[in-house]
């Protein structure tokens, strides 16, 4: 299946972005790319067996991922509003 390979590639890409991108916004974006890959993997599993169950799992997963994204973005915005920081790099002002 082509899409199994596509899903694996998307997971690798998303993970790479999540780890290496310093800006929080871009980390959140990469997390969503990664999520797309994970869900696609479920889709491949569903298509192989002609099975609706993994499709239902993906719908649940997409909703949860959206909630996580919204929450993360609010945290990012609040951090930015208070401190002007756009990354979570360690700074020396702490403690």
């Amino acid at each position, binding site marked *: 299946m082509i*899409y199994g390979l*596509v899903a*694996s590639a998307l*997971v*690798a890409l998303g993970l790479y972005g999540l780890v290496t991108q310093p800006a929080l916004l871009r980390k959140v974006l990469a997390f969503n790319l990664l999520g797309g890959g994970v869900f696609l993997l479920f889709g491949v599993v569903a298509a192989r067996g002609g099975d609706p169950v993994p499709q239902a799992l993906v719908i*649940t997963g*997409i909703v949860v991922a959206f909630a996580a994204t*919204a929450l993360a*973005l609010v945290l990012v915005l609040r951090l930015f509003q208070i401190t002007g920081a756009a990354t979570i790099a360690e700074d020396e002002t702490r403690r």
Partner: protein
Amino acid sequence: MTLLLDLILGLAVVGVAVWTLAVRENFPAVIGFVAYGLLLALVWVRLGAVDVALTEAALGAGATGVILLFAVVRLRGGRAEIDAATPGPRQRLAAGILCGVVGLALAVAVLSLPDPAPSQAAAVARHLPELGVANPITGVLMAYRGLDTLLEAVVLVFAVLAIWSMAPDRRWGAVPGPVFPVQSNGPLSLLARLLPPIGIVVGIYIAWVGADAPGGKFQGGTILAAMGILAWVAGLWRLPPVASRGLRWAVVAGPLAFIGVGLLGFVFADGFLSYPPAIAKPLILLIEAAMTLSVAAALVLMVAGPPEGRRA
């Protein structure tokens, strides 16, 4: 022919993903992400999962794209800090190797999944008549794995409250999100007047047909939420303050109806979330209706963010 189509689509998805990660500016990255989500929705259609395609397009690309754009507009600058925190080439190489290994392991695992694939399709179909619905996805979401869906609906309530609780104390009780000026004329105002009547019909329709055809509460609720957001951004609709009881009951109505019907199962059927076959479909539609409302309300609030305005 179809193989070629799949190949092109697959390459396009991966290509857009790479571009989204590589592009330097935030705004095009988000646009790239929305394109990625829409392409993924096409992939879902190719995989025969129209319900998921609708969800991906509405939530994964649409709603996620909107909140990302909101964030981009409000996060300005920080370039120097970001550059300073950018990992060096050696770290990037290490991360790349690690992620490559994960991707490779996944690929190997996917390719060595057993043939024929195990499937619950037959079991899902066998019991659908007892539920009175024709869409197997709805059967899974509302009956067989109803607990998943219930907990997921509760997660949405968690998210709304968690987002609100990030507000500064002095803003508590106020209207969520920024207040947009009223656009008395202009294209946005026109759209915000023209589209919602159609969109609300479409949203309810999609939630309604979910029992028998692709669609359902999450897809329909997202469309309803989009109409609300449109009216809000155009200044035509003021969100109720977070202290509003009505607003809060709208957010919890879905999961509460779900639990209520579930508990009735103790009395009238075989236990929690079990539906008596005679009235299974009306019960499922009742839950779906309440959930559509709650999903729509929760999504609008999640897009709007924590209370920012003055106390109402």
